[in-house]
């Protein structure tokens, strides 16, 4: 489903990712943990080509993301092609990044109309359904600034779902929220996981990882230190770095 091979990424002299290999099966929920600066967010942004990798490849359902292979070279695709590929990859940002001048419903309905050319009326119905699914049917006409952080993030999740993506990427979706609002967002994400959505979640919510993840990945210093089922990685970590990280956050 999602296949990362040998991903390297540097910002100038700073090497953020140093050879990442990761496979995500269809319907699998992968939770990526790790200290800040370990490259988790960068890895996620490489998956939908918001960041260009220096080496390595990302494939979704076998399709190379962001590049076309000719011989031994990867040539970057035209922007239009990359935008088309991104419609298969839902992305949920830490800061929601809702469009403040559009209502909740318009936020959700924008991309299917603009990027996929689906008929407006059908998309509005779909948007209303999705808002209902994240428990915000009654706030469809509210502008983002009139919504709480938790509500905004739920709209952002509905917005990502509207494209019917193959995989959903979450970049610390609850880190910008007040503690009492974290639960409602995690609840929506749990529902999605139960419904069989393929998800890669970068988070600090260990409880969520334990409850929902099929695989927990622990990253540090730009590499994957260990990965496995949650009870293994969280309760019986093999590596000292994982142990000391978990000791700090638990």
């Amino acid at each position: 489903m999602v296949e990362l091979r040998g991903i390297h990424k540097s910002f100038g002299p700073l090497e953020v990712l140093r050879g990442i290999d990761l496979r995500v099966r269809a319907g699998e929920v992968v939770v990526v943990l790790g200290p800040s600066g370990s490259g988790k967010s960068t890895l996620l942004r490489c998956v939908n080509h918001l960041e260009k990798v220096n080496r390595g490849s990302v494939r979704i359902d076998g399709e190379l993301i962001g590049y076309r292979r000719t011989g031994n070279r990867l040539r970057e695709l035209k922007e239009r092609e990359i935008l088309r590929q991104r419609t298969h990859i839902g992305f949920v940002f830490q800061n929601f990044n809702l469009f403040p001048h559009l209502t909740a419903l318009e936020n959700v309905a924008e991309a299917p109309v603009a990027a996929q050319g689906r008929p407006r009326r059908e998309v509005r119905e779909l948007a209303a359904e999705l808002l209902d699914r994240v428990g915000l049917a009654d706030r469809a006409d509210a502008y983002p600034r009139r919504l709480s952080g938790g509500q905004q993030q739920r709209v952002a999740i509905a917005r990502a779902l509207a494209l019917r993506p193959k995989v959903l990427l979450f970049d610390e979706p609850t880190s910008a929220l007040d503690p009492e609002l974290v639960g409602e967002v995690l609840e929506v994400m749990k529902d999605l996981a139960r419904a069989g959505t393929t998800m890669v979640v970068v988070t600090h919510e260990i409880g969520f990882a334990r409850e929902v993840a099929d695989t927990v990945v622990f990253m540090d210093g730009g590499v994957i230190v260990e990965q496995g089922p949650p009870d293994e990685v969280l309760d019986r970590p093999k590596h000292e770095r994982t142990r000391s990280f978990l000791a700090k956050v638990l």
Partner: protein
Amino acid sequence: MTAPAPAIDRPGPPEAQPGEKPLKVVPARHPWRWAATAVTLVLIAMAGNALVTNPAWDWHFVGQYLFYETVLRSVGVTLRLTVLGIVLGFLLGTVIALMRLSASPLLTTVAWGYVWLFRSVPLILQLLFWFNLALLYDQISFGIPFGPSFFAVGTMDLIGPMTAATLGLALHQAAYAAEIVRSGFLSVDQGQLEAAAALGIPRGRQVRRILLPQAMRSIVPNAGNEIIGMVKGTSVVYIMAIPELFYQVQVIYARNGRVIALLLVAAIWYLLLTTVLSIVQYHVERHYARGAVRTLPPTPLQRVRRFAGTVAAARRQRRAGREQFAADLAGER
């Protein structure tokens, strides 16, 4: 403990309540505010008096010339110069702003150079350059760059005074417009374009639907300044003998000697034009404030209506209270 005073729905002084006397609230007094208000009123009255009673202002000539045909026509010329200058200026300015924000160092430098040049040379000087372009190049030819030319026209035929003025105003305006548009684009959070890109929204639509509406919040007030500046700035082209408002009133007072009256005519027209523009700007700003503020403040018109509404409601309530009171009295008897 005394029993709580029974709630009464009858309006009246609080002392009328049984039991303990409620405390009366006395608002703070502001004697200096009253004094300042009085002084200001006197000053306004003095200014008004000076304007009205001095015959040298020639008010009845003002009335006579305000809608004089040549004056009206010159207002039309001023408007035309303003609209062309602003529209062309902002179109070119947007292109320059996009060049300045592009990744190409050459485009960035050229855009910077344009702004530097056209902002640095006084407008009046630029206008005279365009007016005298024929001295520099007597022919303008169209064809392949550095190659053969398909046809050529005399500069004098192509660029008359009106074209020279429009060109001068627009090119000068573009330099300022570029900076305004650029600052508008920069004011939009980077995350917005990132979100749009992550959703696969096509580039053109990202700009039109996501970037521009948000950038307009900061572009509109600055653009409003520029447009109003342009209305008045067109008066500079009088040096090219173009019959716009300022030139026209000069022509008229040179003939009849009513200098003050005609300057007043021009001032009143400029005031009128800028007033209309200010009102338009107010409503355009409100339009782009959607979602940016939690609730839009009411427009002045809505405010007046609401005030009238509350006054009427208060009056109705008072009357109802009085009637109720009278009815109660009658009932007790």
